[in-house]
């Protein structure tokens, strides 16, 4: 038997997506160190990366970065295929769907803040759906929805603002970017 070498051809785009996913992962780890008053209420800092990737490189790249972050993040925390993983996944998938629509909003009037808020609401909708259909099929969880919705609005807005600030210099030439 001869030794075979498997070589994957990677493009510059692949490298870029991997780099962005790594940044998102770093933010996920950072965020897990922040204590939360209620399980599930998290700032979702990694979504800042998704928003920036969406604005700069389009939806396909944003979807790759997000899904890589969810899967790799669950491997890091040892929750792959555990309930928490499916909660993240359902939230991420619904957010991406919302972003697929939100990205077509006219750029003149809608910025990353709008994208972020729509994605945050879609995120809790996905999570509550999985919680209700699978984990806690009881109408009592309806009591928690206003709390999650408030958190989505607040963190969605903050994340959107942070993403918008990061992209302040987009569209300017390098000369202008220098102080």
């Amino acid at each position: 038997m001869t030794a075979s070498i498997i070589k994957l051809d990677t493009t510059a785009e692949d490298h870029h997506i991997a780099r962005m996913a790594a940044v998102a992962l770093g933010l996920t780890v950072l965020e897990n160190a922040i204590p939360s008053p209620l399980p599930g209420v998290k700032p979702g800092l990694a979504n800042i990366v998704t928003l920036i990737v969406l604005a700069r490189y389009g939806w396909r790249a944003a979807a790759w970065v997000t899904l890589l972050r969810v899967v790799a993040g669950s491997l890091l925390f040892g929750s792959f295929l555990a309930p928490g993983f499916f909660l993240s996944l359902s939230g991420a998938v619904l957010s991406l769907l919302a972003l697929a629509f939100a990205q077509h909003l006219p750029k003149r009037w809608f910025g990353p803040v709008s994208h972020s808020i729509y994605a945050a609401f879609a995120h809790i909708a996905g999570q509550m759906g999985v919680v209700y259909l699978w984990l806690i099929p009881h109408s009592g969880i309806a009591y928690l929805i206003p709390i999650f919705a408030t958190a989505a609005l607040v963190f969605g807005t903050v994340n959107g603002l942070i993403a918008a600030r990061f992209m302040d210099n987009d569209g300017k030439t390098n000369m202008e970017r220098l102080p």
Partner: protein
Amino acid sequence: MSSYESVRAAILPHLKAGDWLTLLLGSSCVVLLTINLWSGDLADKAVIRSGGKIFREAPLARDQQIEVPGPLGTSIITIEKRRARISSDPSPRQYCVRQGWLQQAGEIAICLPNQVSVELTGSTKKYDSLNY
């Protein structure tokens, strides 16, 4: 520049007209959800009657078993996961026991022979009474 002004400068340029619209839409969503879901359509209290008089009012938030005395013997009422039911009763036909879990405000289980009833109440009442 004061800190308030610098915060304004950091935030305002990034909010376009549509973003304000989204914020408004999101806020009204949150307000509507809160009003609808926290208005108490879901039952929050079980009113237990014995012989027509209120024997006890128990919150549904805490799981517990309550023993209610009646003319035939003791009925046992179970509260679990924000639901209530009569789990045991000395009545001959056991209608109230077979009725099962009560969940919505207005639902009621009555054991006529033992003169015991359980009714769920919320802050607003959708129906006067629910029967199946």
